[in-house]
């Protein structure tokens, strides 16, 4: 996975009736956009490290990492 600061990551639901979740990439710790990322969850209150798995997809909205 490759992501830039400002991109959204969508995590699909794992259970019937569960909503998909979203977070915003705040920092990219890997090289050339590779994980791990520091992400802000949609409520804007929580920031965590994020190690994407097969349930995660990047929605590109940010600028390239320099």
């Amino acid at each position, binding site marked *: 996975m490759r992501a830039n600061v400002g991109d959204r990551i969508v*995590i699909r639901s*794992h259970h019937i009736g*569960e909503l998909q*979740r979203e977070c915003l990439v705040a920092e990219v*710790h890997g090289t050339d956009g590779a*994980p*791990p990322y520091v992400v802000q*969850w949609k*409520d804007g*209150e*929580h920031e*965590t*490290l*994020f*190690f*994407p*798995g*097969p*349930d*995660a997809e990047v929605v590109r909205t940010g600028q390239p990492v320099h």
Partner: protein
Amino acid sequence: MKTIDSLRRSGIGIEPQRSIAEAARVMEHTGVGCLAVVDGEHVVGIVTDRDLVRRGLARGLPPDARVDGAMSAPVVTIDADTDVHSAYGVFRTHAVRRLAVVRDGRFVGILSIDDLLVDLAADFSDLTRPVAGEVIFAHHDATVVAER
């Protein structure tokens, strides 16, 4: 199949100095029951919702207590590129429910027993399908034609 290919969920990590209250809120908001406690690039522990209850609430830790005081450590790790069948032996040896998956020493995700059980159930279903078919439906034997 590589171990990393058996992961079903993204890994979510927090720093060891974060509080147990933050850990609980992150679990609630992200819908996971297990967080990796990551210091720099290295996983130093795993904290579950159960850990927060047993080591936090039950022992009277304040909400601002550091999460590394409630985590399980040391963490049992497995290399991301190891054949996943090796994980069965690691689970058996260490009697844990989750392994930290690492690549070049860096944390990349958490493999749970549940992940392997889902894979096993799918494999088992594939194997039982033809057998179940034979049980339900009659055999269609080939007609033997005698040559004269």
